[in-house]
């Protein structure tokens, strides 16, 4: 659920902690209405509808998975037809060299494999979670805390207004910082 642009790697932020997803979802929607810019939200588990509350557009990952799947399907067909009918034809149980039904399981497997692996890889890349990348995370955010991070980009950020909003949705605590990576 990263909404950052590559150029905005560091930004001043105010992070509010909540103890349930409903508060987080509601405050995310209201904060956007009131003109705050949401940097990111963090939840211990996927929350349905959160993408809409935060105002994210449609994920492109579906298309990537689709294209990867088609790629896997085509590679499976080429691989099998080429190896078993052209490059090294073997007589297996008297079947024709190019027997389509026998290719179906591998076609299925490679479609799923390509689609799965490439989507996972692209997902990590888009989220900038490389192998050796280091991320600091908020306290207890993988356990039972739900965090909303607001951008404090410039002086237009109204601290009092933000405070009132946080209190309205029962924020447990608010942390401010000047480097959100």
């Amino acid at each position, binding site marked *: 659920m990263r909404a950052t642009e590559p150029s905005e790697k560091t930004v001043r932020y105010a992070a509010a902690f909540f103890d349930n997803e409903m508060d987080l979802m509601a405050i995310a929607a209201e904060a956007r209405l009131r003109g705050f810019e949401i940097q990111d939200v963090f939840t211990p588990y996927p929350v*349905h*509808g959160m993408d809409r509350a935060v105002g994210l557009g449609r994920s492109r990952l*579906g298309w990537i998975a*689709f294209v990867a799947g088609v790629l896997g399907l085509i590679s499976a067909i080429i691989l099998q037809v080429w190896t078993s009918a052209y490059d090294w034809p073997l007589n297996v*149980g008297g079947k024709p060299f190019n*027997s389509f039904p*026998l290719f*179906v*399981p591998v076609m299925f497997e490679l479609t799923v494999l390509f689609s799965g692996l490439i989507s996972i890889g692209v997902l990590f890349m888009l989220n900038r979670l490389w192998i050796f990348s280091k991320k600091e995370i908020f306290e207890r955010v993988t356990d039972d805390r739900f965090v909303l991070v607001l951008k404090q980009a410039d002086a237009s950020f109204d601290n009092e207004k933000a405070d009132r909003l946080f209190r309205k949705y029962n924020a447990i605590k608010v942390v401010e910082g000047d480097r959100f990576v």
Partner: protein
Amino acid sequence: MAKNVIINGLERNVLVGMLAAGVIGGIATLMSSDRFWFSFLQNSLFFLTIALGAVLFVAFKAVSNAGWSTVLRRVPEAMMGYVPVGAVGLLMVFFGRSTLYEWARGPLVAHGPEVDLSFKNAWLSTPFFFTRMVIYLALWCGLIYLIKRASFQQDVDGNVEHTRKRKIYSSIFLVVFGITFSLASFDWIMSLEPMFYSTIFGFYMIAGTLTSSAAAITILVILLKKRGFLPEVGDKHMHMLGQIVMGFATFWAYIWISQYLLIYYANLPEETIYYYRRTSTNGWMTVFIVNLFLNWVIPFVMLLPRQVKMNSTWMLTACGIALVGHWLDLYAMIFPAFFGSPMIGVADVALTLGFIGLFLFVFVRNLNVEKLIPRNDPYLEESLGREGLHLAYSQKAAPGAFNEV
């Protein structure tokens, strides 16, 4: 029974008319044509499997503690009401047994000297066959009664205990159904060609059942929504239903290729004869290919994008195609062994119409508008979500009245 305003008088007359057309056409063709019993078996199985799939739908959700579908649960529960009716209908096959089943005309005779048919002849004897049929159908009807009773009693007293009971009955149903439906498919369909056998056949039928009933539930939910019922069913639920139809269609294709591939690999004459009959003439080959497209290729491609699952026209089309696919699937299982080429006769049209009328009539009778939402189900809140819950409250008098009868 509370008054039913789901369909108006005209539509009710149309349903009764379809039913009458089915009965008249059925009686007319019973006298004149061989097709009657085959078509009767096909159509009664088609609607029986759709109704049984609705039970599976409810049972899966109960066993897996799934909350999302609670708001639309009364639709599959109303479809379950067809099972006893369809069971009685299927028992009528008793009168057509000698037309349908080779083994009912006398003991099967082995074509080779080394084949021992004594067990097959004992298993496929008329009294044992119909005793089994009655036992299977009675088991299903009994468990369905228990599942439904728990659900409706919760509406009255709001006791959470009913959810646990429903879960237990559903678990029992799933185990019982898995075994008995497999055996029933062997009996009712596979024994039409008594020398052919395929151990995955029952599973293949279950896959078709799951797909078609999910498609039927989706269609009925959309139609009810179009009439202003179930306004609480939102995009989220339609998305889930679309995923289920698409997933089970793919599961069907998986089982289809599993059956085809093993028979193709092994190349044993007593197994390949099944596919030989279905692919050796142009007519049946067409049915064979079209069947694959209707059941998997078209629904799969149509339902692949996310947005279309929330588009009611698109969903109606895809689910309608899947339903026609299941009908054709049963057609391709039952008819090729007895008819040289595929054709649709008067019997097929009349019986299909009649069964559609009967199914919808029973469905509408079972759907109680006053209790269209399981009000006291503990999963209701999860199913409705924030906006949906608000909608449900505003429709009723006040939040406090929600727990009353």
